[in-house]
């Protein structure tokens, strides 16, 4: 036992050592804080540690405390409205308007005062013609001299008051004032008391005689050699340490980086393009007719100002216009309508990363054979829910090469299924996109998720390719619904979580 006490005494923290003597003299924690001249947090922490070691017993009591509210503070200084009403009538009866003026009351306050004072039988109405007037009753005169009890309570007491210290009469006054706005404010206050246990007393005694211990090794001690005499306080090694939040990359963004890496490793070169895009690059250059339903005001976001792109390649616009109207000499009939050059220059938020592909096909540095991909933000006029976002990512790409056909397209899609879902079980089925023919959709059987639609693909129509590249070279185009794959990889059920602003979620998320 004695040995144990000495050990405990030696391991006391600086704060525990400081609080211990005061604990012997005071039981109320606020008193202890005052006596020890320490900060509240320090004392509270020390007491917690001491309690954990069995040296102190801390008890918490809950107390109801009454304080003054905003109006209470005011009325304590400048009198309650009814007290002012009463004072105004001290010398003589007065009409209500005079009372209000003298006492400085508004309509509400005057009304409330009349109610209170009538109930106390302190005033009575003066009967007669003309404006309503009041005078003091006998009782009222007494009260005017002695003062209202409520006023005395408000002005005379030192707030806050503990509820349990109120007299019966005061309790009644409090009950009355409680019903009025912002006069009293009540709080529940925790009060702490602490006492030393028997071991605590023994440790206090031992600590008084124990040698001073050292908390921290300092550079100074090392320089002077003082460390040789120092006795280091031993730590409580089981005490919890606060968690450190190290920096982390955003999991979804990291997943997209991984996707980028995969495409680069498969020989694809990255392409980009602006997010504020013209209808020309986003749709017309893709041979999507201007009357197509996906170009509706309810499907695409339009820019308010500026409304039109000023940097469209005019010669190319003419060729694309011809492709829409009559097929541009590709052997196609075209869409057979009047192409609007104003509509083609309208600025929108990019609705598909295919806009990057049309820009790439038209660019001078297009390589043949060439493989290109884009990871980009796209925007759709959609109601946001667990499956839809207004602003999301797409991964798309093209392969440009002589003699490509549907068989290569199917081969490429099977490769993607292997890369992204690690599966050989795929279905490639016919599909429809206005800019590809043939068109296909890829379904992959994910080992855990079952059949899922992974993306769409096709061979760009000649009416699209010829105006952009000048020839009818085969171009395989594909897009992958990357958000869906990301949700699976990250274990999410709600697509909105991909862009989560919840810090706890981000801090705890596994990084792919």
């Amino acid at each position: 036992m004695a040995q144990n006490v000495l050990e405990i005494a030696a391991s006391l923290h600086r704060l525990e050592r400081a609080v211990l003597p005061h604990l012997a003299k005071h039981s109320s924690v606020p008193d202890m804080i005052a006596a020890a001249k320490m900060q509240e947090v320090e004392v509270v922490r020390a007491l917690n540690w001491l309690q954990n070691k069995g040296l102190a017993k801390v008890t918490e009591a809950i107390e109801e405390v009454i304080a003054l509210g905003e109006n209470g503070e005011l009325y304590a200084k400048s009198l309650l409205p009814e007290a002012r009403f009463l004072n105004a009538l001290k010398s003589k009866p007065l009409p209500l308007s005079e009372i209000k003026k003298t006492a400085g009351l508004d309509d509400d306050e005057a009304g409330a005062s009349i109610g209170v004072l009538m109930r106390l039988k302190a005033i009575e109405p003066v009967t007669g013609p003309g404006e309503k007037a009041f005078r003091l009753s006998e009782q009222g005169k007494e009260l005017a001299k002695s003062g209202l009890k409520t006023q005395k309570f408000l002005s005379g007491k030192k707030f806050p008051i503990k509820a349990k210290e109120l007299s019966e009469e005061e309790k009644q006054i409090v009950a009355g004032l409680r019903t009025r706005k912002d006069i009293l404010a009540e709080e529940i206050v925790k009060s702490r008391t602490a006492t030393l246990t028997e071991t605590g007393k023994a440790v206090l005694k031992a600590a008084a005689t124990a040698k001073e211990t050292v908390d921290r090794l300092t550079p100074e001690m090392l320089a002077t050699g003082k460390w040789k005499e120092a006795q280091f306080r031993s730590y409580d090694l089981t005490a919890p340490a606060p968690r450190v939040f190290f920096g982390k990359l955003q999991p979804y963004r990291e997943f997209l980086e991984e996707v980028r890496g995969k495409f680069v490793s498969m020989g694809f070169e990255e392409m980009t393009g602006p997010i504020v895009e013209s209808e020309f690059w986003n749709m017309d250059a893709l041979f999507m007719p201007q009357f197509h339903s996906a170009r509706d005001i309810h499907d695409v976001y339009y820019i308010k100002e500026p409304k039109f792109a000023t940097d469209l390649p005019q010669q190319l616009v003419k060729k694309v216009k011809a492709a829409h109207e009559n097929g541009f000499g590709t052997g196609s009939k075209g869409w057979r309508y009047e192409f609007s050059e104003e509509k083609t220059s309208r600025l929108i938020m990019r609705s598909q990363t295919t806009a990057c592909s049309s820009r790439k096909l038209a660019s001078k540095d297009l390589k043949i054979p060439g493989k290109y991909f884009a990871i980009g933000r796209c925007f759709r006029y959609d109601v946001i829910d667990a499956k839809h976002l207004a602003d999301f990512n797409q991964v798309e790409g093209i392969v440009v090469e002589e003699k490509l056909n549907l068989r290569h397209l199917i081969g490429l899609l099977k490769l993607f299924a292997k890369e992204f879902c690690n599966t050989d079980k795929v279905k490639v089925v016919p599909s429809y996109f206005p800019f590809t023919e043939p068109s296909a959709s890829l379904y992959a059987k994910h080992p855990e998720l079952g059949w899922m639609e992974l993306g769409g693909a096709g061979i760009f129509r000649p009416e699209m390719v010829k105006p952009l590249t000048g020839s009818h070279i085969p171009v395989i185009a594909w897009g992958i619904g990357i958000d869906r794959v990301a949700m699976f990889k990250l274990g999410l059920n709600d697509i909105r979580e991909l862009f989560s602003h919840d810090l706890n979620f981000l801090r705890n998320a596994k990084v792919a």
Partner: protein
Amino acid sequence: MPTITFSFRDFQQLLGKKMSLEQFEDNLTLYAKAEVEKYDKAKDEVTVKLDDTNLPYTWCPEGLARFFKGILGLSKGLQKPTVKSSSYKVIVDSSVKHVRPYIAAFVAKGRKLDDYLLKQIIQMQEKFCEGYGRRRQKVSIGLYAYKKITFPVHYKAVEPSSARFTPLEYDRLLNLRQILELHPKGRQYAWILRDAAKYPLLEDDKGEILSFPPIINSSSTGRLEVGDSDMLFEATGTDEESVNLAANIFAHNLFERGFEVFSVTVSYGGRNSITPQQKTEKISITPETVEEVTGLKLTAAQVRQLLAKAGYDSSGSFAIVPPYRADIMHAVDVAEDVAIAYGFDKIPDEPLKSYTIGLPHPSVQKINKLRKSVVAMGFQEVFSHILTDKGSVVGSAGIIELGNYMSETYSAVRNSLLPQLLDVLSRNKHADYPQKIFEEGIIAAREGSGITEWHSMALASAHSKADFTEMKQYLSSLLASAAAKLEIRPAEHPAFIKGRAGSIIMDGKPVGLIGEISPAILAKWGIEMPAAAVEINLDFLFSD
């Protein structure tokens, strides 16, 4: 994408063959660019979603059954309804030329409409007009009880207030202008006629009004009911080919349902058009073209066989396109149909053989290096939407607003990443501090008459002692690793406390901002901790 509902038993009757629901589902995805959305067993109702927005004949059980008859070998080659000639006439007045110039019509007789068939006809009418007909602008369709009509029918355009009738689902006479103002359908479709001085009107030879295309039919003549067996069909629109397509598709469907179909002569003054036209077009398709597109080596006979499965006839090296299709623009369209009839599942795949070098975009590596440095300083990365609330931006200079946003939350393009970081801080008041967060991404702003987009990066730190010095430490460490020289000049910005905000200068140009977030901004976002932040334009940083 259209979604249609029909009785599965009805479909099998039209097909003339039993098919299990499972087979139906497989066949839809493998051949028809469609999928079953649901099946209500109690009602025997199947709901199908169709991908091809350019192939309206498949948006009904009749068309789907016709398609599968070919694919499954139950019918061969091009199918055509029998159309009987008649003396029925629609006389088109030249006044419609500037509002809605074209009309196609036919009469169908001899089969009593039951509730199901009437519903199917109305469903097809709606799907066709809403989808292919561009919400009735390009094509709208009207159906009338034949017995109430005296031929010839007149199609003309009139002064909006000069004609009055009681429209369907209404209880009193309205003139055409009032219909657009008061009738629910009028309000829904008034936009189609917003620039028109005269409105289209269809009336019979006695002057009885049939309808006000493309808005609403008359309640006395323009209502088809269960028990009716004879009807007039008409489609009006802005594109002659499309109104003809509508007549072709409906005539074919009704013929397959057991109606006798009679043509109508549409007289345009100078010329006549007899509808449904049922005209076929031919398009050249050789085994070479098929191989070029699909990679399948087929003989001419094989190609003809597959074309027959896909509903085409052949003539030499030409494919004859059925009149209910208007989607065939180019030989590649026919080649795709050949591949579909062959079966995508039977086409062997082939790997790409060319060798190309993969490359990320040049800025990616620099950006990723920077992101990792920021993480190493203890920052949590966030990834936000590019669309933002136009009310949340701090300093709205150059903000790009959307003209047609759905919700305020996504009503503008972000011109800074700072508001996103403030949003994170405001949503995480109960998460442990310090909170050190950052984001890298595209932002955009108007510049002169154009728009500029660039990569930006912002860092924020919030905790009880967050201050300018801390931010400057991070910034200088980052720029040291990016080998850029740092200069900060005093600046004023509404986001920051005056005297504690600086403009970051590189090569004499301002490239970013740094400072302690102003308490007014913190209060606005409900953030209860001091915070400091920095944002820099990465395009400037990397432009060397």
